[in-house]
């Protein structure tokens, strides 16, 4: 039996999504830009997908731009906004717990002469709104904060940040990396004062190679990719029609059963949390329960190396992820685990479990059972 608890890495494609994509590739394979009927049929899928997504965000379809995925969305949002608004200032604010696709784009901009303020997170992996407010300068043009952290599932106060920016500095653009949170939270960019929002398709039972960037009307942004002028010239390249159709359907499905999905995830997570707490030498990282994301649980195991534990679980068909542990002096290279104050040993013994709506109680119980068997064996052979 396969137990897949690595849904923050990627998810299994929903069967209906798969079928729709098969149909698009096999029957409605036209280029959305073609003038003939095949083209207009393909364009319909693109349009429907934008409508499906827009309705989950309570925005207009015209604000949705498809990309190749989360990394491109983050790159484009930050680089495109920074470059288009350069004359207004060259200061950016972000946090030290962002995904590498944000961190490394920020580093690139640092090399280009921009200044970046890297906000710290507290021991629960949460950034403070007042720290952020204090970091703002007259030449600040963009604030970029992730919604749900990918390593420990901590949730950033994006609503409060949006509110604070609206009140005090409405001209500053606000980008949110929602790659781990879209489908798990109700996100309404207009109400929350979010100008740019990044989402990836394969984290929500959609296909890989597709994502989108929400861009508010007021945002001045430069394209990242130039070419034939597709998507109003903002993002050239032949439209990935099957991917877009798949993403639209996957998003629509998630939000159609939103409340029951979230309840289910929290209840599974609570079961896993309680089970882990009964095992000796475990430490749950960050907040628990409803104060953290419904699908991510990070746990440090004493006297075990996460890679070894991961492979031992893999032998039993259980797939999880190891917490990253790479440390250096630059804030962009410090992992979330280090920045929330975990020791080196704790970081090296950290496993991330991430659930999906397809996970079951039985899978959780089997995983806990496997851990209880494996851990004593592995701990007998710890490094002396």
């Amino acid at each position, binding site marked *: 039996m396969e137990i897949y608890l690595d849904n923050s890495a990627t998810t299994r494609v929903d069967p209906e999504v798969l079928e729709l994509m098969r149909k698009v590739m096999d029957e409605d394979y036209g280029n959305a830009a073609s003038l003939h009927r095949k083209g207009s049929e393909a364009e319909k899928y693109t349009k429907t997908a934008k409508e499906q997504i827009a309705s989950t965000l309570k925005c207009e379809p015209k604000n949705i731009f498809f990309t190749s995925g989360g990394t491109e969305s983050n790159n484009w949002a930050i680089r495109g906004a920074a470059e288009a608004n350069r004359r207004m200032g060259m200061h950016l604010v972000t946090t030290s717990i962002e995904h590498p696709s944000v961190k490394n784009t920020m580093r690139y901009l640092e090399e280009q002469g921009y200044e970046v303020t890297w906000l710290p997170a507290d021991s629960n992996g949460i950034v403070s709104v007042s720290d952020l407010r204090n970091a703002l300068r007259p030449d600040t043009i963009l604030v970029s904060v992730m919604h749900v952290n990918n390593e420990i599932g901590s949730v950033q106060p994006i609503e409060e940040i949006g509110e604070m920016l609206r009140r005090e500095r409405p001209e500053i653009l606000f980008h949110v990396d929602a790659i781990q949170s879209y489908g798990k939270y109700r996100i309404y960019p207009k109400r929350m004062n979010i100008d740019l929002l990044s989402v990836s398709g394969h984290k929500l039972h959609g296909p890989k190679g597709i994502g989108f960037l929400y861009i508010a009307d007021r945002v001045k942004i430069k394209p990242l990719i130039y070419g034939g002028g597709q998507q109003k010239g903002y993002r050239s390249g032949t439209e990935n029609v099957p991917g877009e159709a798949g993403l639209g359907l996957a998003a629509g499905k998630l939000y159609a059963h939103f409340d029951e999905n979230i309840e289910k995830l929290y209840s599974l997570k609570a079961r896993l949390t309680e089970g882990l707490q009964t095992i000796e030498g475990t430490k749950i990282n960050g907040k628990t329960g409803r104060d953290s994301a419904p699908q991510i649980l990070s746990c440090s195991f004493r006297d075990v*190396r996460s*890679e*070894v*534990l*991961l*492979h*031992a679980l*893999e*032998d039993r068909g259980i797939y999880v992820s190891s917490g990253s542990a790479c440390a250096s002096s630059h804030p962009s290279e410090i992992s979330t685990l280090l920045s929330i104050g975990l020791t080196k040993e704790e970081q090296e013994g950290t496993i991330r479990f991430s659930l999906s709506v397809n996970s079951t109680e039985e899978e959780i119980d089997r995983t806990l059972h496997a851990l209880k068997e494996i851990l004593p064996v592995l701990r*007998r*052979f*710890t*490094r*002396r």
Partner: protein
Amino acid sequence: MKYHAFLIKYSEIAIKGNNRKYFEDALVKQIRFHLRKVEGDFTVKKTQGRIYVECSGAYDQEDVIEELQHVFGILWICPVLRVEDKGFKDLSEQVIRYVDATCPDRNLSFKVECRRSRKDYELNSQEMNAELGHDILQAFPEMRVDVHHPDMLLRVEVREDFINIYSGEIRGPGGMPLGSSGKAMLLLSGGIDSPVAGYMISRRGVFIDAVYFHAPPYTSDRAKQKVVDLAKIISRYTGPIRLHVINFTDIQLAIYEKCPHDELTIIMRRYMMKIAEHIARENECECLVTGESIGQVASQTMQSLLCTNSVCMLPVYRPLIAFDKNDIVEISEKIGTFETSILPYEDCCTIFVAKHPVTKPRLSAIEKSEENLKDVIPELLQEAIESDEVILCQ
């Protein structure tokens, strides 16, 4: 310029006396085997102490040369222009066309060296040298003759059915043709050294099989895949490699629990050698090969090597024993294993490495420590040998 054939030069085979035919046949067989992978029709012929690869149909010269550079036993590869004998005047024109196409920079010295195996040709070799040299100078006045150290040595050979024109030589890998020297069992890890050791021993005409020790869950599937990838890379030279994957976890854990920690690596290596020897004998290998180099790490000091060496009866060949690390790296870059070797999948095994391992172990002390294992080790060794999973890498 399109060549019609490649003249293959080999060095050591030529001095093997009565065995020469045997070595040449092995080389011809290997060349044929390698060229099966290249698009085109090739005939490999052995004539008068030479090997020619004759090409016909559509083929890419670069592909042929690259493939030939993977055939052990080849010292030089000479692309040859073959012309029919239509009289000396025509030959002279062909030679000038050849020089025109192969020497874009005419500011060079040259020498013409002609040979005749057909003694009834209209000119003798000396006359040909002089006439062709004269004709080339007439055609390209910038060129000059230097019979001692020419930039270009132009060879013209009048054979029974055709005339060969060639000048450039491309270096082959050297060594001896595969299949001329038996079979070895290589201890292959994911590191830089062992693939190079396998390449070097194979270069002496030796077929190789390999053994890899896998320790799940302490080492991952990716670490194993890396070893398979390395075996595939060197198999371009060595021919197909049967990789034996042995599950070593339980032996490692037993050593870890029962033996002094600073002797861990030595004892581990001794059991690896024992298992490798067993697998080698079962597969008709005549020796073991390792990538060890004196003093590189604690387990490769003279004293450590003595301890690991003393567990097996088969000879253990260590082609890198006196090499510096940077020399080994250089070869690994040349044969294309370096980038794979440095992929970082090995470190999950680090709990089995002592912080301060012994560097001068005494054999008697090691043997005494191994006494602690005597109740469990025969069974564990048997289980490890039975875990043998064979992966064909080619």
